[in-house]
């Protein structure tokens, strides 16, 4: 036994030194472009966000490396450089992510990091990124606070923040003539849920001051059991129920609320409701107003780029792409454009991070979800057009999205320099609709 | 029938039994005498397989017990009455007594129960009471009854008279004397020599885990 133990110790120490060596040796002498990709690969956010996003990203990187993406993305890789992606699991909390980020930058010496679904991670990473001078592209997270509370040199977010989701929904409710005399909300008990509800409820109050707030529920994240909440929502008899639930929580909520008649009795709105459609299919209720955090999936614009992406994804994975793959691809496109713009300037060399950051600032590029403009946060934060729709059965009995209203980016996003919440409170001054 | 051959047992870092040797023949009754902590309970538990041996062997009817689990030893016909009685409080006296017969398939529970009640009729009177409600002395008696059910060949009685009122102690002593007549082998541990002295065939003195005869 003793001998066995000692052997084990020996083996494990050899293994560790070996891995360390691999880690170090991997870091040097790389010619292409090394990209750390951080997204949820385990835990409850993996199935709805992390995995489909990475599926989209993986596919897009492969096609980029093969040079099979249509113009203006037809150059191979990033400006001719082959992209090597290192995927990292985002689960485990912000503090763990800071460490993983450091490992990517210091140990693997990646050229850039693309990642982060969780707002908590997006709040934690940028300061480290600037400290380590590491180019970082946030591709998904929603909190407006990243560039409203601080400014960073090497950090960019290629997707609009969450304020737009809820402002647009409030506008949609009014434009479509829904009764918003009373509203209730069920949102998760953390920043995302709380911010979403605040943005929505304040927007509604601004647009329709007589509207009354009935019920504000904040169940804890990943609770999965909503029987009590559904009773409370139905008891409140609010005309509109708002929710920013996502992933398994949203799926479970739908499955539990549907037989109890919630969707028949009240107008339910899901601010990020599209990404569970591929999974739920026809179990998705009719008549629900939903956003996709951008013009994605069933609400994507009818452009060549979108048709190409939608089809490529569908062919590869057999389901249509919802918001997560769109957003990751959007991040990759932004990064590619910035790199290639920087290369134009420096004569085609591999650009350093300062050159890429300079090119990224204020960049505008086309994505399958429409024109993305890095307009907020002094050119570090994107705005993009938005779409809201209502679910309905099509003639084959399949659930689809109809009644789509599209909003210009400048209509549902604050102008540069104003915080989203102040902009809402002030009644959307300067909105260009 | 039972030979304990230079057995050592470690409890934590302490050597609780050192090269202890003992043997008992069929129908013999031996007394194991030693102070508290001398190793009596450790020895009995080792025979039952509760404690692992550091070295030495224990044989029962020439069968090496070293690798058998407690329940297998009980099935060989060894009955054990622990010092702290070890009755199951939620069960009735009768259920406690019957416990070994539920698991050991070779025992006929009716037969064994009749035998126990025959030897100790007072147990029958309290048979439906929960063990939780018995006095210490009554518990000793029930535990002895339970040991008798599985102990068809050998009984290990750990301090049966300890902490028992004199009258009951006298009664227990009579019962044990009566068992000797049934050709039963018995090892009985005591912290001091007492009134039962005359019934033993052999005596082992144990001190700090060693046989000091």
């Amino acid at each position, binding site marked *: 036994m003793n001998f066995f133990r000692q052997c084990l110790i020996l083996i494990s120490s050899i293994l560790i030194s070996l891995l360390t060596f691999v880690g170090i040796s991997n870091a040097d002498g790389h010619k292409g472009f090394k990209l750390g990709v951080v997204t949820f690969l385990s835990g409850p956010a993996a199935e709805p966000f992390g995995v489909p996003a990475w599926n989209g990203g993986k596919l897009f990187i492969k096609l980029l490396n093969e040079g099979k993406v249509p113009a203006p993305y037809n150059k191979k890789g990033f400006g001719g450089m082959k992209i090597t992606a290192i995927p990292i699991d985002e689960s485990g909390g912000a*503090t763990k992510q800071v460490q993983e980020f450091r*490992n990517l930058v210091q*140990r693997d010496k990646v050229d850039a990091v693309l990642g982060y679904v969780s707002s908590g991670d997006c*709040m934690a990473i940028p300061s480290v990124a600037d400290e380590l001078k590491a180019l970082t592209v946030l591709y998904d997270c929603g909190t407006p606070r990243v560039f409203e509370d601080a400014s960073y040199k090497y950090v960019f977010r290629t997707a609009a923040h969450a304020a737009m989701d809820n402002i647009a929904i409030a506008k949609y409710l009014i434009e479509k003539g829904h009764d918003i005399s009373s509203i209730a909300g069920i949102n998760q008990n*953390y920043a995302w849920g709380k911010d979403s509800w605040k943005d929505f409820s304040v927007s509604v109050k601004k647009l329709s001051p007589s509207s009354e707030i009935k019920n504000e529920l904040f169940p804890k994240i990943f609770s999965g059991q909503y029987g009590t909440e559904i009773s409370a929502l139905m008891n409140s008899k609010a005309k509109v129920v708002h929710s920013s639930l996502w992933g398994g929580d949203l799926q479970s909520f739908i499955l539990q609320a549907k037989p109890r008649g919630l969707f028949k009795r009240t107008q339910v709105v899901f601010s990020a409701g599209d990404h569970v459609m591929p999974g739920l299919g026809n179990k998705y209720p009719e008549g629900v107003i939903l956003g996709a955090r951008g013009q994605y999936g069933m609400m994507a614009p009818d452009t060549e780029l979108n048709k190409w992406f939608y089809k490529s994804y569908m062919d590869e994975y057999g389901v249509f792409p919802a918001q997560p793959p769109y957003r990751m691809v959007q991040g990759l496109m932004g990064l590619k454009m910035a790199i290639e713009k920087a290369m134009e300037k420096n004569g085609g060399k591999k650009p350093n991070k300062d050159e890429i950051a300079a090119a990224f600032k204020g960049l505008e590029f086309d994505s399958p979800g429409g024109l993305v403009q890095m307009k907020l946060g002094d050119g570090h934060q994107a705005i993009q057009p938005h779409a809201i729709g209502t679910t309905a059965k099509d003639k084959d009995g399949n659930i689809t999205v109809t009644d789509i209203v599209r909003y210009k980016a400048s209509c549902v996003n604050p102008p540069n320099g104003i915080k989203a919440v102040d902009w809402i409170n002030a009644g959307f001054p300067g909105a260009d609709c | 029938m039972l030979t304990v051959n230079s057995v050592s047992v470690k409890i934590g870092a302490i050597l609780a039994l050192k090269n202890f040797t003992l043997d008992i023949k069929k129908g013999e009754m031996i007394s194991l005498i030693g102070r508290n902590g001398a190793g009596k309970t450790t020895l009995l538990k080792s025979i039952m397989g509760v404690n692992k041996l550091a070295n030495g062997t224990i044989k029962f009817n020439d069968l090496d017990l070293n690798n058998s689990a407690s329940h297998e030893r009980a099935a060989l016909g060894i009955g054990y009455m622990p010092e702290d009685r070890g009755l199951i409080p939620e069960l009735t006296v009768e259920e406690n007594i019957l416990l070994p017969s539920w698991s050991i398939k070779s025992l006929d529970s009716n037969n064994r129960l009749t035998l126990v009640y025959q030897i100790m009729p007072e147990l029958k009177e309290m048979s439906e009471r929960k063990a939780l409600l018995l006095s210490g002395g009554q518990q000793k008696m029930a535990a002895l009854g339970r040991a008798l059910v599985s102990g068809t060949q050998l009984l290990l009685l750990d301090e049966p008279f300890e902490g028992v009122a004199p009258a009951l102690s006298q009664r227990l002593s009579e019962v044990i004397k009566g068992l000797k007549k049934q050709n039963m082998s018995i090892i009985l541990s005591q912290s001091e020599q007492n009134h039962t002295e005359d019934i033993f065939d052999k005596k082992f003195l144990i001190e700090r885990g060693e046989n000091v005869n």
Partner: protein
Amino acid sequence: MSEKLYNNLLFQSIFLMSFLILVGLLIPNWLVFVITKAIAYGLVGLGIITLMRGGLVSFGQGFVFGIGGYTAGLLGTQAGLTDAMLLLFVSFLFTGLVGLIIAPLLARYRDIFFAMLSLAFSMVLYGILIKIDAIGGSDGFVLPESTYFGIKPSSEYADYILYVVAIIMTGFISILLRYYYDSTPGLIALAVRENELRVEYLGSSAFNVAVLNFTIAAGLGGMGGALNGIALGHIDPEFTYWTTSGEFVFISILAGYLSVPAVFLAALLLELVRSFSGRYFPDTWQLILGLFLILSIIFIPSGIGSFFKQFFDRLKKSK
């Protein structure tokens, strides 16, 4: 004799510390950082080991880890205190004080009940932290960059300087702990582990031993939390979550309660396994970490420290 041994210990420790400080210059930055983090976790593990010597295991050291981290963080953001050494020291004292206050509640209990009660405390703190939006709620908050004697090091050297500070402070704490372990109250704790009743008969109070040990463990855990927060530049309620506490218990069990340096080695080992399995097996790192935990508990039940002890015992014999 014992005089000589202690001198020897002090000499050994200072030698080891200087060696590590020098090594820090040669190894890559990420490893410097990983070691700093391992020191932070090791400090908490050291606290659990102090408790283990008295026969107790806390499954809720996330409680003190979190308090230490938030103390350092709030002093940094709210009071503008950024001196790393001062933050570590203040967190140590403050968390120790919190420990002293709640210790009497915990010290009455043993075994699984002690473990569960401490776990419950950490979960209550978790529940509170995610509710307070003013300090970031579930997202936590970013710490200001640390200074040393009023100087803010450039970002290339920040990691290394914190590493040096961590090694020096932890080194001296470890020496003090060794003295404590070998002192009368420290040895009484070991006796409590063996036989609590006997200790009570001899006139010492097992309760007092538990209170003292828990207070020390709390202080150490708080300092670990502060160091972890400062090193990462971010803290969040995850510090107090039960999975974090589980890692601390694992570190101390992997190390065993016999040796102080073993704790830091165990923490480093865990850090490396977790980080490399996350890097090379992003989909199944939990599986690998889990198997690593199970196998190390099966094959090294008395901890790495027992190897150290065997090794030194053999060394002494051969002399």
